[in-house]
């Protein structure tokens, strides 16, 4: 790679003692980023500790506060910030959250925060690190507001694979299938999208890929843009919702992980990406649909007819959640109420585990396949006390974002 490495400032407590510092370095190296620890003096720590006003007891957290202040004050330069502390530490959670907010409000540095366990791997950190470096490196590309020429976007998700063909800022072809073999699923959706558009692959001027299978598919078909889904989905969401300027929050509840992204002018500011809890994902809703004997596409309308409060639902675990669901059905609750309760359970978990880590700014845009489940959108809206925007083609968000951003490569941006 000939590009300069992106300099990412690390504010942390514990990764070296948890054995995951090497994983952080490895993930950074994969995206040509360089981690560094901002240099501060003992006097800086004492001063910033008093000025910041948070009485953290841990020495490493005091150091993290001083380093954050050095970044904001500009005495240390960085392209992006990575905040990492131990999972399960309450003091670290407070500091992590306040530092993320402080940097976000007082600088234009992209920030990602993560709470790690000793099992955190470079692979887990990769998407976050990739998003962080993309925001730092490709601001010009991310500022693209219109799609030009003819482009194709492929989104290889954990549950479904989607493709979109766009021409002159319009969607002209779509393809959707369940993900089985990554390449085969991609071929299927590309064929459908091209056929709907009445075009051949050779007509396409630029291709973008995103999602879990982005590298495999991108390399196979020679994509111009291979990009993680955090930046791609943010761009796709504000484009489809026609909210390219100003603030927005994008929520994407996926099959395997969830993303909550705070967006400014289409560029992600801070984001969280969950992925350790199946009970807070589309997988749980798929399972619910199967259990009540309906197709996943019917779950939303059924849930809209039910009352979520009628069924007590454990919202912390897919196993206990399923148990609650089975018990409710055995007790004679209607499938409408059970479907609504399942939607509420997922919304509650995403709210509790993730949305409290990003500052919710309106409009809130829900995207991804789960945004078509009206019951889930309703429950999320009632939790956030806002009207949620679900743009047309919201299930194709990754493909749309890829098709839009890849059009920047037609003229070699």
């Amino acid at each position: 790679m000939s590009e300069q490495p992106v300099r990412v400032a690390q504010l942390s407590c514990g990764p070296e003692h948890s054995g995951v510092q090497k994983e952080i370095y490895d993930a950074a190296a994969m995206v040509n980023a360089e981690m560094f620890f901002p240099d501060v003096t003992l006097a800086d720590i004492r001063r910033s500790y008093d000025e910041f006003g948070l009485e953290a007891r841990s020495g490493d957290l005091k150091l993290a506060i001083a380093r954050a202040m050095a970044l904001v004050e500009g005495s240390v330069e960085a392209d992006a910030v990575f905040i990492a502390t131990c999972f399960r530490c309450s003091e670290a959670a407070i500091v992590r959250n306040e530092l993320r907010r402080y940097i976000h409000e007082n600088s234009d540095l992209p920030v990602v925060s993560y709470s790690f366990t000793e099992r955190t791997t470079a692979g887990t950190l990769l998407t976050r690190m990739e998003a962080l470096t993309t925001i730092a490196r490709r601001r010009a590309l991310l500022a693209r507001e219109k799609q030009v020429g003819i482009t194709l976007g492929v989104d290889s998700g954990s549950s479904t694979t989607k493709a979109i063909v766009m021409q002159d800022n319009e969607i002209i072809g779509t393809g959707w299938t369940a993900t089985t073999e990554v390449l085969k699923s991609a071929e299927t959706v590309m064929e459908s999208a091209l056929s709907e558009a009445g075009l051949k692959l050779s007509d396409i001027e630029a291709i973008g890929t995103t999602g879990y299978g982005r590298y495999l598919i991108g390399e196979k078909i020679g994509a111009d843009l291979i990009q993680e889904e955090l930046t791609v989905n943010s761009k796709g969401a504000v484009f489809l919702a026609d909210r390219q300027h100003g603030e927005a929050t994008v929520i994407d509840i996926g099959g395997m992980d969830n993303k909550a992204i705070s967006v400014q002018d289409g560029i992600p500011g801070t984001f969280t990406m969950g992925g350790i809890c199946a009970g807070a994902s589309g997988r749980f809703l798929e399972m619910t649909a199967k259990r009540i004997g309906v197709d996943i596409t019917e779950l939303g309308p059924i849930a809209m007819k039910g009352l979520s409060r009628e069924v007590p639902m454990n919202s912390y675990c897919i196993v206990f959640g399923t148990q609650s669901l089975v018990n409710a059905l055995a007790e004679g609750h209607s499938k409408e109420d059970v479907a609504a309760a399942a939607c509420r359970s997922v919304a509650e978990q995403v709210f509790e585990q993730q949305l409290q880590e990003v500052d919710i700014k309106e409009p809130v845009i829900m995207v991804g396949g789960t945004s078509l489940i009206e019951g889930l959108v309703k429950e999320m809206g009632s939790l956030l006390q806002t009207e949620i925007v679900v743009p047309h083609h919201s299930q194709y968000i990754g493909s749309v974002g890829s098709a839009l951003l890849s059009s920047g490569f037609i003229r070699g941006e």
Partner: protein
Amino acid sequence: MAKVFIYPATSLVLSDMVERWGHEPLGAAIAIRERIQTASLDSPPLQMTPEDPKKGLKWAAVEVPAGVRGRMALYGPMIDEADAAIIINDADLAFGCMGCSRTNELVMYLLRKRSDIPLLDIKYPTSDEEGIEFVASIKEFLTALGGETNE
């Protein structure tokens, strides 16, 4: 000669004092030196691997943050091995910084729980008079342990 666990374990002043009065200090420098000198998977800066938090399970349960368990993999064996211990409460950052406050609480608790060893539990001085008294009490404690002065 006694093995004396020092808290803050990173304090070079305390480590030096223990040595001067003829004892072996047990502190972070020793634990970290062992990590660096032991050939193993390279995980800078401490050569710690995800295996270490598992070793820390002996002193801190699985629901405790990984960083605490990793640190306990360093300090736990030394606490078990110690013949005596010195705890300096509320020490200044410059005197010896222990990164994780939760680990510090556990380390101090485990030391205090070891009622079978002599323990000097004192406050960090804030004035010259307190400083003189502070050094004198450490000297008295270490002398009573029967070490030979290397002053």
